């Protein structure tokens, strides 16, 4: 960690917070505090400079206009690139995932991305709306991904990144893979408060940020029940 407390930056909540994105900051902060880590959550608006020394950066979802504007301002600011060079963790969701790539489609044109992940996104034939599930890359050692997706994009991964998961329900990147990761950067189409349904993924981000190989377990009764209920619902919808 960069200082005594774990610093979490929520990037541009004024632009990139379409639906419950705040949840990811709340969940990370709570799970860190429950392990006795002091936490500082910074909400950095798009007219402010991005600090380059935080441990975890969160980039949320957004409509086309705010997504394009957010990417422009992040490129001009340069803080996120400096943070990544220093080994910070980045978690991108939906529009926030797309803009970490080389380019994405918004407002009728292909827009330049941050080029932090080797992927590019364009418009798909139809909007992907519904439950999303997948088996996560075994190297990450996590249980299955569960979430809700709502996006019109399709994402094509380059050789420098690995898919986060193999799709078992929903569309994700292209109907076969979902999300992407490289080093300590990770993105997903599981939108909004993706970590609410995936507490193990939250802990992975915390382990990356702290360098801890293991974190003390927490009482996840309610998220376990939620995960199991969603798994049953997805299976029932497929049957």
């Amino acid at each position, binding site marked *: 960690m960069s200082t005594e407390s774990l610093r979490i930056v929520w990037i541009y909540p004024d632009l990139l917070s379409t639906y*419950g994105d*705040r949840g990811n900051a709340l969940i990370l902060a709570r799970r860190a505090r429950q392990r006795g880590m002091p936490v500082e959550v910074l909400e950095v608006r798009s007219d402010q400079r991005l600090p380059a020394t935080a441990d975890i950066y969160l980039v949320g979802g957004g409509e086309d206009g705010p997504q394009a504007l957010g990417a422009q301002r992040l490129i001009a600011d340069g803080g996120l690139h400096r943070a990544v060079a220093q080994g910070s963790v980045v978690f991108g969701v939906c529009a926030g995932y797309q803009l970490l790539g080389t380019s994405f489609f918004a407002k009728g044109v292909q827009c330049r991305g941050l080029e932090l992940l080797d992927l590019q996104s364009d418009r798909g034939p139809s909007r992907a709306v519904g439950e999303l599930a997948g088996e996560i890359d075994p190297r990450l050692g996590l249980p299955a991904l569960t979430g*809700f997706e709502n996006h019109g994009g399709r994402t094509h991964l380059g050789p420098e990144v690995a898919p986060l998961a193999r799709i078992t329900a929903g569309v994700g990147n292209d109907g076969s893979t979902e999300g992407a990761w490289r080093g300590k950067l990770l993105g997903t189409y599981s939108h*909004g408060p993706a970590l*609410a349904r995936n507490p193990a993924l939250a802990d992975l981000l915390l382990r990356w940020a702290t360098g801890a190989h293991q974190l003390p377990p927490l009482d996840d009764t309610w998220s376990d029940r939620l995960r199991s209920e969603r798994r049953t619902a997805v299976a029932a919808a497929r049957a």
Partner: protein
Amino acid sequence: MPLRAKVASSVSRTAAALSRAAGRGDGSVIGGWIGLKIDPDLLAHLSAGRAIALVSGTNGKTTTTRLAAAAVGVLGRVATNSFGANMPSGHTSALAKAGSTPYAVLEVDEHYLAQVLEATEPHVVALLNLSRDQLDRAKEVAMMAQLWRAALVRHTDVRVVANADDPMVVWAATPPADPAHGINPPHVTWFSAGQRWHDDSWVCPECGSTIQRSGDQWWCTGCALRRPEPQWVVEDEGVLDPTGAWHKVSLQLPGKVNLGNAATALAVAAEFGVRPVDAVSRLGIVTSVAGRYAQVDKDGRNIRLLLAKNPASWLEAFDMADEAPTLLAINARDPDGLDTSWLFDVDFAPLRGRQVLITGDRAYDLAVRLDVNDVSFQHVRTFDDAIRSVPPGRLEVIANYTAFQDIRAELDRVN
């Protein structure tokens, strides 16, 4: 009315009566749906000869419609879709059922505003607010504002009553003028109903710059869009009218949000020539609206029903609810939206220290949210379990759409 419209209107009323008799529903949609199948222009035919007000927005439209209908009622009979059936089939049913009336006040789903403007040629349209709601199928907020704006450009003779506190509404209500082509902006009367929820209007819909706020004021940092001076304003327990006269408003409905709805209703009625001093006492006769705010006594508990469908309306519900045991019920069926992510846009902290019960199809999503929010709670399977779990006295029930209807059904479809 053409013969085809007469037949359609009569069949529509019969179907609605059958639906109610069969216990299948309020009959507020099915009749209109059948009528429109027989005569696709039925809504236009039923609207002809009436002075009509439309009320649209994300939140408060059912209640504001009810209040505005009460206010316009000073002048004569008013047709209205008071069960919240707010799509063209519901409007058709309401007008067919009411028979001939000089006035109508219709609640309109925000997605259908353009279509209903076209069909009904209203005298007034009231624009309340726009915020995130059921994003898995609804239009995103900026897109909805754009649709409203495009619709108003085609109806520049309609009088607009709009919320000065919501930047998205202000932008939608002020389309650019094009006098060379005979397009003049619509006449707008502004009201201030307050806006507790700001998270969908930080970015200017006109130029993409940041919107700044200070007190009641807001302005775009990059263009001329800013809060217009409102003519109707909520002040203390009453409403200031455009002449500067203050009218005490005594409502049976709770919360500051309903004072704002009352101000809107008075502004709408004023567009028909109703003086606020004549209308204000009529607002107090509205007790509950399609079950919203209804109070039911059962097993020694005084149960009050509050509907909260999206983050903005949850904030309003917490403002209205008493410090009492509270049941939260969440579903995610089609009418609710299938996505529960919005739960993380709501800060449930006001409920800390109260006895909180949770239920509904998606109670586990809510459980995870409350856990993160440090709100302790107990999960119950049924509404009866909830009643048994709280002491005699007030039980506040806050539920989203279908969860609300489920509980309302348990209470014999209370209105």
